[in-house]
């Protein structure tokens, strides 16, 4: 129906405008998350194509991507200035947590990679 499509267009336009207002560092984090998830999807597609023979490798790869995406999301939550809950947490501290958790995640994933 013409109203629906024009409504959808209006909705998307307003969303894009609102998104443009977000601070750059948050945009970087969003981009990172999107790329990580895309990488995971690529791996799932590959597995779907050739079968799950070294299953541990598949799991390791996918979970590493998903894990890092999750950690990035946590970072985004903590760094967001509009978030009242984490007002007192310095962003550098959140970033340090992000780095540390990523390193541990990747150590475990490397071990599981085989």
């Amino acid at each position, binding site marked *: 129906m013409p109203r629906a499509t024009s409504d959808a267009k209006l909705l998307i336009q307003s969303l894009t405008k609102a998104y443009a207002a977000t601070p750059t560092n948050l*945009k970087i984090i969003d981009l990172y998350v999107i790329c990580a998830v895309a990488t995971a999807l690529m791996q799932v597609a590959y597995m779907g194509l050739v079968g799950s023979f070294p299953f541990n490798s598949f799991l390791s790869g996918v979970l590493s991507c998903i894990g890092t995406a999750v950690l990035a999301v946590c970072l985004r939550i903590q760094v967001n200035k509009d978030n009242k809950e984490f007002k007192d947490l310095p962003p550098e501290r959140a970033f340090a947590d992000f780095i540390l958790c990523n390193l541990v995640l990747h150590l475990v994933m490397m071990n599981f990679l085989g």
Partner: protein
Amino acid sequence: MAGRRPAPAAFLILVLTAAFASISSAVRPVSDAHRSAASELFAPSADGSFGDLESTYEAVRTFQILGLDRYKSVTGKACEFAAEKLASPASSSAKDLFHAVRISGVLGCSVDAGVYDVVVARLKAVIKDTNSLLEFYYSVGGLLSIKEQGHNIVLSDAESTFHAIKALSQSDGRWRYDTNSAESSTFAAGIALEALAGVVSLADAEVDPSMIGVVKSDIVKLFDTIKSYDDGTFYFDEKPVDATEYKGPVMTSASVVRGVTAFTAVASGKLNIPGEKILGLAKFFLGIGLPGSAKDCFNQIESLSFLENNRVFVPLILSLPSKVFSLTSKDQLKVEVTTVFGSAAPPLKVNLVQVLGSDSKVITSDNKELQFDRDNNVHYLDIAPLKIDVGKYSLVFEISLQEPDHETVYATGGKNTENVFITGLIKVDKAEIGISDNDAGATESVQKLDLSKDTKVSLSANHLQKLRLSFQLTTPLGHTFKPHQVFLKLKHESKVEHLFVVPGSARQFKLVLDFLGLVEKFYYLSGRYELEFAVGDAAMENSFLRPLGHLELDLPEAPEKAPRPPAQAVDPFSKFGPKAEISHIFRSPEKRPPKELSLAFTGLTLLPFIGFLIGLMHLGVNMKNFPSLPGPAAFASLFHAGIGAVLLLYVLFWLKLDLFTTLKYLGFLSVFLVFVGHRTLSYLSSASTKQKTA
């Protein structure tokens, strides 16, 4: 027998009755078998020596007694060894000098008179100073040996030495080793008697005869402690107080024999010991047979050489060269009576007094004299006139010396018992085999078996019939014979075997196999059974295992629960030999995708990363916030370098490192990283707060 001390007469009677009902002694005098055993036991080591001085002396003395020529080849080495010790008497112990002097005496080594003078002086000094029995023994023995090699030695003050040794004796005839020890020992008694004999020989004046008499009564008391076996063997033994000091019966008896024969050789008059005990000691040493160790060999041979001609009693041994006599070849019973070394005995008569069968049943009590063959030195007797059947018997012999004054010189032991076998041909006759119907008196088919011919019977039966086998066994003298083994064996085609003992009565042997009762025992196996007949006994010269023929047996079918026949013996090589090679089936490897596809997707996976970099450029990512001051800048770059190093470490971990090494390096790096990161981030946060407040 141990521990009792009845009066000598009662003891004699006891010994005689024991000899009566005894097992045979089975001794043989010293022969070439002993000589070759001694050669083997006393083999010198690579450099020609026998070990220490004592072992060397034992070796050369045994060779000397047995007349073995090989000791002449080791003379040089042994003489040198002895001379070494004699050269420095002050530093050698009395024991070493004792053995060295005796080795020189046996081998006839030439020793300087001067050397011996010094040795003599040393030994005399030991005698003066010591009060230990062993020191007395070694020094007196050494001096005696030097005297026997031709030097003139006299022991002054012999009486006090005699008293000193005698003082160590105990009331039961044993001796202590020195004044301090409380334990007395039979072995020490032997040594003491030898030492006392030496003192008497070396004395310048005659020793008080009453003292000699006291020692003689000590010897009689010592012989009261003698132990014995049932077959007339006597020996000395001690309670093992200390395991290392325990000498054993051979060594203890040898010591006593040495001491007693040495003492009676120097003392005048007769010793009041029964001849049975001396004979028993000789039997003990001969009963060792071929000894297993060098020390046993030395003790055995030396004791027997002393017993061969001693002044108490010379034992005469009765022995049988062969213990099996055949009635078929009309063997003669042969008996030898010799000294312990096999030398001829004085004139004597041997009588066969009794023949006892199994269970000591008396077969005959006629007293038969054996005739003497002077050329071969054997007493012989024809057995055939005795009318003894085949079997195992005990023959009782009695030796009587022909000259009456030999009674006090030789010990013959009165009655001697020996076990013998008499063998002969057993006749098997009236052998019949046949099949009969159950409970029917008449047999269906009876065949006479002639076991001398090689004919085979061929029988057939079913499970309702019986097999009958009967025969008679007769000895050469016509009596019924009961052998040890009389079997009928049935062997099936499948190698399953069944053995049946044929029961015998006074008249004949008869076996009845009732197949009805044996069906289950035979595992319901029908078919062809081979028949084998076996009769055997030790006294039978013609024991046989004869195949008789075969039997076709028809048994009913086996029911469900019937026992299976046992598994037959398998050829061991097929069971334990190498088996076929196993070809293992491995899991087939998973199908992997083609290489190109994998590489394509690797590229595809990296695409999002490239997209990330492009997006970053799009967003205008810059490095403006990078600290400009050198200090914080260094930390910041170190921070990034640290993260890069950790990631590199992970790559290496995946490629070749193991977890523990990785964790080790990670530990170092993380400490560094934490420090650096803290500095950097705190600088950044302070910078941003300054910006906010400013």
